[in-house]
């Protein structure tokens, strides 16, 4: 659900790598095929699925699908869905806004450039950066559930649950962006005697803005998905309605909520895309060279400032309407037994099947990541010749993004047995929806010249796409996929219930047993795994971006 430091990393990867495969042909697949490599996992998967399928819930699944065209229009249902939707959007907006402020401040605090210019020291930046890895490693759902236990059912919980990990993510991106900027102008100003804060603002402010705005916009989309997910686990808003209507198999009412959410999500994505183009921001899979330090920020500066200024009354109004009261965070409710003698039951802690739990989580992450990365290019390729099919693929991506993974998993259980594969499918499909959109965006930004040349030379649409378009995006796309794997690791917690394997399932079981010691241990292991995963995916990404 989250998206991290891809913005700065991808800028370096901008131009194509068409020549890359030339040197060591023997060992490498051709570049266009590189993108399709992960989709090879579909072959064994298709082999396994018949053994997992039981088809018992086919009736229900058909009812679910049919209900899509006949959503409930009952005024009561509509009103409840709209109220829920407003709450979800409000929580997303507040959490997002708070995360931006938090992230900007913490990002500045963890920037090496800033520390060097102002205090001549580097180590505090490194320290803060490391500390920030911890809030980032814990999924917003975990923050939400933990806060829920500490302060009770308050509207502010969801907002803070989103703001903490998102803020830490934004901080990382801000720090990376800052430290990646050319410091020539800064040094010049400093040598000329300008005080550090003024020099920093003048030299680094403008080039920082485009990357920040583009990334910030993207975080709002993530926040909407997160707020929906938090609702599924009882933190209020439309997610709660979706969960309850699905669980009670009221499919018509379920689709009422889904269609409304889809409309809002597409409107948000389109709106942000427009703004991004209007304000000349770099794309996320930035292949065009719009980004970097060059973009003309000044032209639309007034608009931007106005838009940001509008956030103030908007945030206050939303906080008011939702009853978000930060003071509620101070009223901690004691957790019965915690801190008392014997609240940590070492024997039971060690008795948890740790290797199986961790193994299950890793297997789930890998399978889901490969699926998420592999599906979209294949879907595009297969649907290339038929425009209606292409539209259908886009629609399926939108629905997959929209639908929180635990709900997909519940639906899949109507056809498949519980387990790693079912859970991985649920997560993989959701993330394929996210990656698919990025892929489409990157393709739209790239140059169509090669593809057109191939097509006019009589090559079919599929081959033209494969050889004309895919080579340029292969490496950035896969690099983004590596980053996504690390997000997925964090996300495995949300399908734990259904996966029946992995740390996530144990976590929800421990939560319903109110076993605080187990809960803490599980969160710690999760954080540790995520930190390791982040390190690993960073390396893979750097290698991919450096190219052949």
């Amino acid at each position, binding site marked *: 659900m989250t998206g991290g430091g891809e913005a700065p990393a991808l800028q370096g990867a901008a131009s194509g790598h068409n020549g890359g495969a030339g040197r060591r042909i023997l060992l490498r697949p051709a570049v266009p095929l590189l993108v399709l490599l992960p989709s090879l996992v579909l072959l064994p998967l298709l082999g396994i699925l018949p053994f997992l399928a*039981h088809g*018992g*819930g086919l*009736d*229900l699944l058909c009812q679910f699908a049919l209900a899509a065209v006949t959503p409930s229009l009952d005024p009561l249902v509509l009103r409840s869905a709209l109220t829920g939707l407003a709450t979800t959007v409000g929580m997303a907006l*507040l959490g*997002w806004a*708070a995360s*931006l*402020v938090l992230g*900007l401040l913490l990002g500045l605090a963890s920037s090496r450039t800033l520390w060097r210019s102002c205090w001549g020291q580097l180590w505090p930046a490194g320290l803060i950066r490391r500390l920030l890895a911890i809030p980032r490693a814990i999924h917003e759902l975990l923050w939400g559930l933990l806060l*829920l*236990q500490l*302060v*009770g*059912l*308050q*509207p502010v919980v969801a907002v803070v649950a989103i703001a903490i990990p998102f803020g830490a993510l934004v901080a990382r991106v801000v720090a990376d962006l800052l430290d990646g900027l050319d410091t020539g102008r800064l040094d010049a100003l400093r040598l000329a005697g300008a005080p550090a804060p003024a020099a920093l603002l003048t030299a680094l402010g403008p080039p920082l803005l485009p990357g920040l705005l583009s990334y910030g916009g993207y975080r709002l989309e993530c926040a909407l998905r997160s707020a929906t997910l938090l609702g599924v*686990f*009882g933190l209020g808003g439309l997610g*709660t309605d979706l969960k*309850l*209507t699905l*669980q*009670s*198999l*009221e499919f018509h009412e379920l689709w009422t909520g889904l269609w409304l959410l889809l409309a809002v999500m597409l409107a948000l994505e389109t709106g942000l895309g427009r703004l991004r183009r209007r304000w000349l921001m770099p794309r996320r899979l930035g292949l065009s060279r719009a980004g970097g330090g060059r973009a003309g920020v000044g032209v639309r500066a007034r608009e931007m400032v106005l838009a*940001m*200024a509008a*956030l*103030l*009354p*908007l*945030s*206050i109004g939303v*906080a*008011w309407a939702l*009853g*978000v*009261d*930060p*003071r*509620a965070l101070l009223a901690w*409710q004691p*957790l*019965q*037994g915690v801190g008392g003698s014997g609240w940590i*039951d070492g024997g039971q802690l060690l008795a948890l099947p740790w290797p199986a739990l961790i193994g299950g989580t890793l297997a789930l992450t890998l399978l889901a990541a490969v699926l998420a990365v592999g599906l979209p290019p294949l879907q595009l390729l297969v649907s290339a010749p038929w425009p209606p099919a292409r539209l259908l693929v886009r629609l399926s991506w939108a629905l997959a993004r929209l639908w929180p993974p635990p709900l997909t998993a519940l639906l899949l*259980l*109507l056809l498949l*047995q*519980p*387990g790693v594969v079912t859970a991985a499918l649920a997560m993989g499909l959701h993330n394929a929806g996210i990656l698919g959109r990025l892929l489409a965006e990157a393709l739209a930004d790239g140059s169509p010249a090669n593809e057109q040349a191939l097509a006019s030379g009589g090559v079919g649409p599929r081959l033209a796409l494969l050889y004309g378009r895919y080579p340029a995006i292969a490496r950035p796309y896969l690099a983004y996929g590596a980053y996504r794997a690390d997000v997925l690791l964090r996300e495995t917690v949300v399908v734990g*219930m259904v996966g*029946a394997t992995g740390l996530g399932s144990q976590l929800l*079981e421990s939560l*319903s*047993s*109110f*076993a605080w010691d187990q809960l803490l241990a599980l969160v710690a292991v999760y954080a540790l795994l995520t930190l390791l995963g982040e390190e690993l995916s960073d390396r893979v990404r750097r290698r991919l971006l450096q190219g052949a």
Partner: protein
Amino acid sequence: MARRRAVLGLIGLLASPLLAPMLPAGPLARLLAPAPAGAQQPASQPVLRIGAIPDQKPEKLNRLYPLVASELSRQLGVKVSYVPVVDYAAAVSAFRTGNLDLVWFGGLTGVQARLQKPGARVIAQRDIDVNFHSIFIANARSGIKPISQQKELVVLKGRRFTFGSESSTSGRLMPQWFLSQAGVKLSDFKGGAPGFSGSHDTTIALVSSGAYDAGVVNEQVWRTSLHDGRASREKVIPIWKSPGYPDYHWIAQGDLDARFGKGFTSKLQPAILAWRPSDPQQKQILALFGAQQFTEADAAAYGRIEQVGRQIGKIR
């Protein structure tokens, strides 16, 4: 006031647009925003917030509990509101954190709630809760036949099986206990784990459809479903009725007297015990609860539930 707001807003605008999102946390927001209704303050008119574990369809809960709220409000002369929650554990947490004052808990969740909130009081249970039963059910086409003895539960090995909520007494805790006595472990089910449908109604729907071969539900919901036609014996059959155990009960916070006036708790209990089918509204409530009337409940009776809960690991 309006002008003051405008001025403050203008100051905020000028100060820095980037500060905007932080302001809800600041003094400005405190001036601008009224205290939310849910905030726990010594309000002039305290509201009794009632809740329930979501063991059945939300649609049914939304019919039943507003009725309960209006009846209690009439009887006790205080405002009563119903707060829905998303799952069993959330009901326990909301009780512990003081978001709910009076909750209709199951056996297990009630014990969990009382352990986490010392001083909480058991108020009442239904006549049927003293000796409650679970019904194991199977899809009619699954080939599973009714059994007469507990040890025959082994027929469920290798089948797709679903419980209700993870914290359900009649839909998980006691059934798991009976299964383990018969030698059936959770990993013996097909797929290596049982499902958790979330509620009794959903278990019936999933087993009827064939999504699961078998499942287990609370007897009262099962009877009601057969009666109103939501379950049909052509699609789903009962295969075994469990021995009895104590289940659902009302639990109230220990500090109600301090908030609603002296003697409030001792008025609350007789109010619930006084519900009779002769009163039209009370009749409706009792019918939705599937009971003739409510009786006093003894906290000690749930000792057995606590014991099983500890053995299965749901109580620590």
